[in-house]
């Protein structure tokens, strides 16, 4: 995808708002100049280029639209899940509607549409733009296979967070001092929360490119998290919550922060029962 193609995904006009000043483009080297402090997140998922366009209308606030070309659909899906708070499918393959903002992903793109300050007209315009951009992206992207391995039992759907950069091992809590699981861009990993009225736990799945790499990751994890692995890969942390892990072929799974042994076992069994 080149800059010209990104431009083609944007309408010239929507609800009376017209494209304003020249479009701006940023890549890996220049994204810091645009979203100072926020660039690393996009780079961690894999990112090629973003187009940023301002839409203007007399007497109305400015609207800013960014379309990130994330190279692969798994990257666009990942960065979308990273800050998803609820399940919503108004646009693309998943969206978030916030105050004065719409965010969504489709195919290899992650789209952000923001109104500078809220007005009813501006609110209509951001939805008009979202609809137009959605329609301009012809294909849908594939959701990473590892996500489909998550048990549906008690899954908190909006918590599902896909990643392939080691930084996000600490997505839910500061658990990892280092990249013990050898997460690289060749791995596919997902965090998910499971909850009943009284119980809650986090499940981590990591799919490796081959069994050898999976064993190395598992061994490193086991060494760090289990003081006596020969007693079984289940242990209690300092706060009395349970941790357990399992390796099967290329798939590593670990349950963190579980209230009891049974809950960890149930979750792990349900992965492998699929």
């Amino acid at each position: 995808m080149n800059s010209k193609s990104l431009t083609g995904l944007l309408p010239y006009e929507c609800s009376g708002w017209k494209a304003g000043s020249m479009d701006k483009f940023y890549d890996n080297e220049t994204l810091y100049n645009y979203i100072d402090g926020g660039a690393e997140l996009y780079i961690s998922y894999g990112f090629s280029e973003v187009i940023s366009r301002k839409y203007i209308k007399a007497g109305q606030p400015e609207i800013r639209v960014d379309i990130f070309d994330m190279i692969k659909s798994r990257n666009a899906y990942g960065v979308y899940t990273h800050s998803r708070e609820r399940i919503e499918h108004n646009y693309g393959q998943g969206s978030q509607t916030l105050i004065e903002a719409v965010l969504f992903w489709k195919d290899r793109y992650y789209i952000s549409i923001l109104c500078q300050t809220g007005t009813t007209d501006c609110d209509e315009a951001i939805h008009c733009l979202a609809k137009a951009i959605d329609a301009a992206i012809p294909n849908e992207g594939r959701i990473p296979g590892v996500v489909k391995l998550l048990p549906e039992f008690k899954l908190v759907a909006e918590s599902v967070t896909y990643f392939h950069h080691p930084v996000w091992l600490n997505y839910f809590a500061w658990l990892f001092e280092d990249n013990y699981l050898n997460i690289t861009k060749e791995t596919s990993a997902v965090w998910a929360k499971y909850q009943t009225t009284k119980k809650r736990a986090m499940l981590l799945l990591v799919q490796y490119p081959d069994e050898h790499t999976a064993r190395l990751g598992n061994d490193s994890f086991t060494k760090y998290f289990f003081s006596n692995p020969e007693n079984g890969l289940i242990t209690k942390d300092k706060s009395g919550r349970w941790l357990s892990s399992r390796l099967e072929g290329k798939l590593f799974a670990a349950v963190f922060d579980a209230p009891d042994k049974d809950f960890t076992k149930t979750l792990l069994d349900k992965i492998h029962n699929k």
Partner: protein
Amino acid sequence: MKYSRRYWLKSSLVASLAGFLFLKFPLILFGKGTGKSKVILIRDTAALDQNGKPVRKTISDMMDKAITALTGIDNPRDAWKSIIKPDDIVGIKSNEWSHLPTPEALEDILKERVLDAGVREQNISVRDRGIRKDPVFQKSTALINVRPLRTHNWSGAGTLIKNYIMFTRRPWTYHHDTCADLGKLWKLPEVEAKTRLNILVMLTPLFHGTGPHHFNKEYIWNYYGLLVGFDPVAIDSVGVRILENKREEYFGEKRPLNPPAKHILLADTRYNLGNADPEKIDLVKIGWKEEILL
């Protein structure tokens, strides 16, 4: 005792200026040797008007109360004079992030207080970007660090510790491991041992972020506060506790910062910059106590 007189003596700059410092500053600046870092949390619901804009008069009063509580000197002007001297060259390191900048009113108040302490106007600069080329910052003998608290999608939180990122020519070299080593910034020659006061603006903190610009009005709230102290680590530690508690209240469950703001803890344990441990923080609460989240 990490922010003690002994700590300051150990730093290279202070070693060369030890006599100068002991003549000029009271021990109060060094934590009174208690081993605890004093942090002032001051809140006033009149700090924001009906439109959420900062109210200069109220914030001015809050700063006066904070500086007197912090130094133990009753008169605000004298309190300022205990930390800033007339021959100081003062850089007020602000933050201009467009969605949540340091309030202009607070920048003006700080500049006024520094002028009142006897510093000449040409020896004061209030700035964020471009400080490396700013002649006042280049020659500065004293720094005042002021910024709003917010979540951050790579470092966990935009903190006082992080606010000095503009002092380096290569900010990206601090991005490794979610900015774990930001504490190292405070060892740069342009920075080390110069900071006289830290103010974490808690008027409308950002407790969560989403999208590329990491900002949405849904995730700010009126807290009406300022955190003021000498120890940036202690202040950031208190600030992040407030953010975490707000997140728990908003989301209805524990929702730690994502990623964790590990640079705060490591500024303590790895760089000895201050106290992150709540047990080593003497938190003084002044003003409005409701919804304090601590």
